[in-house]
């Protein structure tokens, strides 16, 4: 599989076809990043489109010092911030009604699996947006602490401490939703 950094350099050098490969590899992750960080489906699709438009427009700014994924999510994060700033109606929590919860579910294990997934998603949606974003970037998009710290413009220790706080809040929210006592 071609390295995404190399693909982005190709795009930078005028091989715009290569952007399609980057889009196919990343659009689903980006879409789910926007959904999980509190946007509805329509807004998430718009934000993905806007992010890739910025990738094209600002392709010359990709220096390759960071990996492509963290550069892409940096653009995505700025696009989202711009969206919130302009709409001034940021949804801080995921709209549970709009959130996809899968299709065919039967009783037994599948139902249990679905319920657990639903609880995780709802717990995640209920915590502080900034802490939620850190968890989402680490858990679902495999960005490391250094990359996330750079995106959030803070040092590594602050990032670790925020991650810990976020996970604690997530666990509390999960247990509350599941009807389990908190410690």
């Amino acid at each position, binding site marked *: 599989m071609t390295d995404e950094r190399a693909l982005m350099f190709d795009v930078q050098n005028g091989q715009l076809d290569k952007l399609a490969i980057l889009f196919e590899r990343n659009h689903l992750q980006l879409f789910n990043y926007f959904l999980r960080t509190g946007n509805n*489906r329509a807004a998430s699709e718009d934000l993905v489109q806007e992010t890739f*438009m910025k990738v094209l427009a600002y392709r010359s700014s990709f220096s390759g010092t960071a990996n492509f994924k963290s550069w892409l999510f940096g653009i995505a994060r700025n696009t989202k911030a711009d969206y919130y700033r302009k*709409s001034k109606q940021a949804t801080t929590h995921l709209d549970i009604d709009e959130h*996809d919860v899968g299709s065919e579910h039967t009783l037994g294990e599948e139902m249990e699996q679905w319920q657990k997934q639903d609880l995780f998603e709802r717990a995640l949606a209920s915590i502080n947006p900034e802490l939620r974003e850190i968890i989402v970037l*680490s858990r679902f998009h495999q960005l490391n602490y250094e990359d996330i710290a750079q995106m959030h413009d803070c040092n590594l220790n602050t990032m670790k401490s925020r*991650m*810990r706080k976020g*996970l604690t809040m997530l666990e509390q929210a999960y247990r509350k939703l599941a009807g389990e006592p908190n410690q």
Partner: protein
Amino acid sequence: MKQQDVIDWKVAQLSGHQNVPMSTEMAEFIAQNPMVEKELAFIESFWKHEPENLPQPSSQMRQNFYSMLDEAKAQIQPDDVKTEAKPRLKFIGILSGWLAPNPVAQFSSLAIVFVLGMSISRFDVDSAPTQPGLAKLEQEVSSLSSLVAISMLQKPSASERLTGVAYSSQTDLSDPNLSATLIGLLENDKSTAVRLAIINTMRESSRLADKEQSLIELAVNESNPLVQMELCRLLLINGTSETQRTLLEQLKSMTLHDDVADFIREIQSTSRA
């Protein structure tokens, strides 16, 4: 050993950023702290739980992306046939073209004209069409298009707002409410696509003069280089000479993004040539 170290180790392991076995010291620390053990179990459960059905975007999103890419590829010339203009600047123009009002909206407006024509002729069957009648019809169509445009421009989805911009282009932008809505969106819309489409619509309008002062302010204060370049292009090519002079004077006193500065120079050299 601190609790924070244990959590960091666990997250790094689960994310695949490291593969370091648990140290004896850490194992002892966990054994002595059942709460930490429980916390680690929760983190592991959250990390290892794979969502069954990841929400999928609509096929429209993919189509939009490929339309944008096709337009960009078609317009960017290969290095060996480059003209004097810089390809990066050409590309900005292509994006604007891609964002132009779509044919569906144009077809819809034609349908509105047809329906209005039919209803008027039904009430006025015996009399021959007169000039005031036609003027009234045109006014009705324009006012209806403005109404539809304003309604679409207030929708939450960018693609619906783009349709609203397309409806706006069917009018002469004389409706003050429509003009105010467009200027408001041009200033604040979260979608660059919508903002560029509005600029494109204004370029084709014959009523640019009464909006030029507002547009100068927007161009000067704009933070998005793409939008700023298109606003400058609009005013420097379609604006009055007074507007062009005012804008250039204001831009001179500012620190501009490199791309914007290149762009202004490009436009100035083209207009001088």
